[in-house]
């Protein structure tokens, strides 16, 4: 029988998000997927987890979850991993995801590899690949400990339907820290949008300083292509878009089929977050902008006239 692989189900999951489906697909390749939901979950989510191969779904209530920053979730996940005798624990990459994974690894004396794009067993050893140094290198590493904790970059694999009847287990976890901990005094979930999530979208249209603060063409093209809206660090710093939409080293890292950079020069910190896109289109009035050395199609011109004309043609 294959070993259990624990998957942490994405935060705020009312419905299954694409990165959780991808984690379940990877878990199915590595062993027997066990999905862990921290907090409440609607029945529809449980069915969706089964559809992507979760053999077990652990619904874990934790009264301290919403008051705690990261720690309660990490302790809960470690507790479930032990209960399931899991050899591998998978978490989606992100600011919180990486911290949760690090704390779980600390608790379980497990090896940690963050932001992996693939993972496999090679003669009983877990081996994973990650892309480093602004996309220039791929590092292959193996985990030397009995238990491995991985964070997996969204859009690294295609989620596969592997319908199973998930065995549902209800559990309760009490987070009882022995040392003083931080307390969440207010929380606001990410505002819902009709557009796909930035890290999961197949198409991302981003704007930079060259938009001069008018994101209407960026949004119109994103909507015409069914894509997500992003922004460069310069656009975030100028207040054109919220930081949650920043693409780059200190923002989101995206790997869509199509990335459109509008008025973005292409600093290395930005390229680090979008270099793995399959196709790249850039529109920038500066012929010397580094983005032109990277894009599959580079247009030197004024985005304010070109983009509306393109949107009109896309109808």
């Amino acid at each position, binding site marked *: 029988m294959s070993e259990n692989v624990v998957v942490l189900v*994405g935060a*705020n999951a009312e419905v299954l998000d694409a990165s959780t489906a991808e984690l379940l697909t990877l878990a199915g390749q590595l062993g027997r997927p066990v999905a862990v939901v921290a907090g409440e979950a609607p029945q529809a989510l449980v069915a969706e987890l089964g559809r992507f191969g979760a053999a077990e779904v652990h619904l874990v209530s934790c009264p301290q979850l919403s008051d705690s*920053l*990261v720690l309660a979730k990490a302790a809960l996940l470690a507790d479930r991993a032990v209960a399931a005798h899991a050899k591998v624990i998978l978490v*989606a990459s992100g*600011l919180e*995801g990486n*911290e949760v994974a*690090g*704390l779980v*690894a*600390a608790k379980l004396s*497990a*090896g*940690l590899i963050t*932001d992996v794009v693939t993972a496999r067993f090679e003669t009983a050893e877990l081996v994973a690949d990650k*892309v*480093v140094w602004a996309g*220039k*290198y*791929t*590092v*292959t*590493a193996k*985990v030397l400990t009995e238990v491995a904790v991985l964070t997996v970059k969204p859009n690294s694999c295609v989620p596969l339907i592997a319908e199973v009847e998930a065995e549902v287990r209800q559990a309760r976890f009490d987070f009882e820290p022995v040392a*003083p*901990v*931080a*307390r969440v*005094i*207010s*929380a*606001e*979930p*990410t505002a819902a949008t009709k557009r796909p999530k930035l890290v999961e979208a197949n198409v991302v249209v981003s704007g930079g300083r060259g938009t001069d603060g008018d994101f209407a063409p960026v949004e119109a093209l994103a909507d015409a*292509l069914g894509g997500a809206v992003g922004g460069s660090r310069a656009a975030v710093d100028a207040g054109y878009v919220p*930081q949650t939409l920043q693409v780059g*080293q*200190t923002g989101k890292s995206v790997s869509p089929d*199509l990335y459109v950079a509008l008025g973005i020069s292409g600093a*290395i910190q930005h390229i680090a977050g979008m270099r793995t896109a*399959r*196709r*790249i289109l850039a529109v920038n009035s500066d*012929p010397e902008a580094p983005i*032109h050395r*990277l*894009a*599959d*199609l*580079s*247009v*030197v*011109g004024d985005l304010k*006239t*070109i983009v509306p*004309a*393109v949107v009109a*043609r*896309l109808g």
Partner: protein
Amino acid sequence: MRIIALVKYVPDSGDEVGFEADLSLGRVGPSSRLSELDEYAVEQALRLRTELAGATLTVLSVGPAEAESALRKALQMGADDAVLVTDEAIAGSDVFGTATVLSAAIRSLEGGLVVAGMSSTDAGLGVVPALLADSLCWPLLSQAAAVSVEAGLAKIARVDETGSRVVEAALPAVVSVTDQSGEPRYPSFKDVLAAKKKSVATLTLADLGVDASAVGVGSARVEVLAVGRNPDRAAGRVIVDVDGSSVDEIVDFLAAATK
């Protein structure tokens, strides 16, 4: 109270990097420097120092002897003194080894508030602050877009994949700050001169009472098997738009890319 800002000496993000015999990333590149993201930690630590009566700021780094230049930069920004933990046995440590050394140093320096950056710019895991809080048994206030301290209570605003939160904890605490927390200051000529008089103390594992077997490549829980250079993205077609002349080609490109 002693505030401790954590800084790392890393290759510049524009550098061509090399890899050591154990396949770890070479830290000493042609323009290695204080990690850009740690400048935000130094900046916030400097700001908090002025708000906390009697506070001093020590910058702390773990790394090769060359890492002194990163500490010197932080001293130019205005830190009071600097400590470099350097020891051949530390080379090749994973995050757990690094956190072991840092937490021993923080205890030994009797820090009351630790300020770190959001992640290193080279390894980029973003987990060391969480591991430090765990090992020091201090509250964790990480990935802060804004931080304040008042009456012994630290408060941060954080935005992550779950949404935005305001979080608080009593000191001592571990804080990490993002690049949204405020632009780092640029040292003036006067600051640069003043920093020459400041000291950089060096500590070894023995000074900290850390067993060499708990750190270094031998204690790492992950082994790098291979490093491969990815092919550069070939530059594609460049066209110059004149009065909308590029629109047809863009529409065709988008159609092909989203098929």
